[in-house]
């Protein structure tokens, strides 16, 4: 029986194994050691979702609580990275990027370029994103396109436990600043995860499922939505190929173009806002390439609105398999360009 782990535990294991292997890896963030040492029955929260639980007990000197001062500790990650550590800083929710964006965007992302290649900033910012848990407008955004927009940053969006572990290991070992975006509604998802330490290289897409009639590109939790749609389509005789880019920067454009060249039809499913988002970027990749589409490419995203709180509104907000099926029908309508 192959071993299965949750997405959360896969991330935890990547950190534990990499910290054991490399003593320059340090982990810090709000409540990562949380409460440990307060009284006799020491307990470490491991961050608000418990992702890093157990690590403080193993590495008490390298798992460090921070004050609620994101600007200072995210900046400290950049400074530490430039001076010899490999920090993994946890930004509890990606929505909090606002209070520390300067340190990410103007410092960490630009050191190497501005300093004529003389600096390296091997740091990871782990954060969570996404709607689906009733967390409302300030705790549910999918802001990875904002970070993808910035040259100098690498951005990872894992869609399953296997990738989460391997991509995080690759991110920690990478010499550039990496933003590692975990979908908070996927922490409990189980999947096969090898026990040994392995890397999933940044910039290499995964063919989630091969198909002939249409290419669906999806990231993070939208991969599951695309898979559900593909099953429905299969029943109707439509064979969908799903590509998960896994990282938005670097982006494996070759894998996407190769697939679309084969299928001739193109749909993107993305959870970020529709304007100037990941979806528009992925559509433009194909639209401006030499690949001839045989139908109008389709984009499935939430509407251009903040994430609502009420359950029914939140469900209406998130792309669902029916919307993807409809988009595939529109994308594969023959003669659309006639």
């Amino acid at each position, binding site marked *: 029986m192959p071993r299965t782990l949750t997405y959360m535990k896969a991330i935890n294991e990547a950190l534990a194994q990499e910290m054991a292997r490399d003593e320059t890896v340090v982990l810090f963030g*709000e*409540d990562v*050691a*949380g*409460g*440990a*040492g*307060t*009284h006799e*029955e020491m*307990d470490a*929260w491991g961050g*608000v979702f418990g992702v890093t639980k157990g690590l403080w007990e193993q590495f008490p000197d390298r798992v460090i*609580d*921070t*004050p*609620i*001062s*994101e*600007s*200072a500790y995210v900046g400290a990650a950049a400074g530490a990275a430039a001076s010899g550590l490999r920090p993994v800083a946890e930004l509890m929710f990606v*929505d*909090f990027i*606002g*209070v520390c964006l300067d340190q990410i965007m103007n410092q960490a992302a630009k050191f190497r370029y501005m300093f004529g290649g003389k600096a390296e900033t091997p740091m990871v910012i782990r954060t969570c994103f996404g709607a689906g*848990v*009733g*967390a*409302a*407008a*300030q*705790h549910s955004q999918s802001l990875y396109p904002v970070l993808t927009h910035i040259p100098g940053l690498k951005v990872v969006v894992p869609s399953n436990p296997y990738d989460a572990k391997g991509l995080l290991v690759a991110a920690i070992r990478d010499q550039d600043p990496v933003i590692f975006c975990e979908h908070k509604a996927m922490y409990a998802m189980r999947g096969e995860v090898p026990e040994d330490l392995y890397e999933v290289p940044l910039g290499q897409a995964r063919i989630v499922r091969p198909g002939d009639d249409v290419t669906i590109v999806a990231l993070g939790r939208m991969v599951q939505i695309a898979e559900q749609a593909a099953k429905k389509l299969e029943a109707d005789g439509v064979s969908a190929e799903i590509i998960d880019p896994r990282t938005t920067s670097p982006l494996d454009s070759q894998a996407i173009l190769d697939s679309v060249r084969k299928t001739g039809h193109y749909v993107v499913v993305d959870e970020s806002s529709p304007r100037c988002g990941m979806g528009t970027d992925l559509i433009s990749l194909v639209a401006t390439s030499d690949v001839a589409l045989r139908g109008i490419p389709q984009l499935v995203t939430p*509407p*251009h*609105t*903040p994430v*609502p*709180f*009420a*359950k*029914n*509104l939140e469900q*209406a*907000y998130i792309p669902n398999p029916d919307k993807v099926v409809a988009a595939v029908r529109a994308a594969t309508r023959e003669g659309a360009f006639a």
Partner: protein
Amino acid sequence: MTTAIRPPIGLDPGLLSRDDLLRAYRTMRVIREFEERVHKEFATGEIPGFVHLYAGEEAVATGVCDVLKPNDYIASTHRGHGHALAKGCDVKGMMAEIYGKATGLCHGKGGSMHIADIDTGMLGANGIVGGGPPLVCGVGLTSKVLKTHQVGISFTGDGGSNQGTFLESLNLASVWDLPVVFIIENNGYAESTSNQFHQKGIDVARRAEAFGMPGMIVNGQDYFEVREAAQVAIDRARSGGGPSLLECKTVRYYGHFEGDQQKYREPGEVERARAERDPLVIFEKRVTSAGILPADQFRMVDAEVLALIEESVIEAKAAPQPTLESLLDDVYVSY
């Protein structure tokens, strides 16, 4: 003005009218019962999202807001129910909002963490720690420019007092001489992290001096101490004297959020606080022992409040969900 670190013993209850006293007690009781009930209902799984309860800290919100005028503004935290209730937000509208219903104060768009009501001067609970202090600097500026004599109050936790936005706001309010009061609710924890691990120099009020404003520390469990100090700070702000910082030492009875097991707290810590430092008990004792009001008056308030909370839950559960068409409402005024 020099920096006073501790004000006198607290307001003499006899200086307030019986109506004022009963109103203050009622507000605290409403907050308590609201929170106890949300705690119970959350456990049934019917309330979506994250809920952070204010129980234990009632005297802070009430002592401060009782000095405010209806057109003053407050900016709150993620732990916002108590502030909203003390500022006068509708109990039923709040309960419906927590359930995500169309009849909620924010039409189900915000939930517990974003309860707001501009008409009552409640600029919102806030999902972003440190989001509030800059906003009340804006309130202070409006008041100064338009000469409205309004005051802006921000509530911030001990954890939030480490956020750059808080420290920048102290400085801005000070150099602009804004009619603003910064309230620190120091309950000793930022989520699971005790303040012994997140700040050196546990008294946040001492930072005031560095920004050229008065700082005060009060027992946040005692309504009369909070109210007296808030009165000093708010009067000073309203009369053009500039900002102040008021730190209230307090306790939260529940976990950081509902579902938090609180293993980071010492065994018995909360039980001891409930037994020895309960703001409602302290209030009632001070008033009854001074012979101002008999205990049965308080019991009448208790009964009335319990009935109100019960009604609010029944109505919230029965209320309709927002219509799907409303998903795109209110993104812009016009687009």
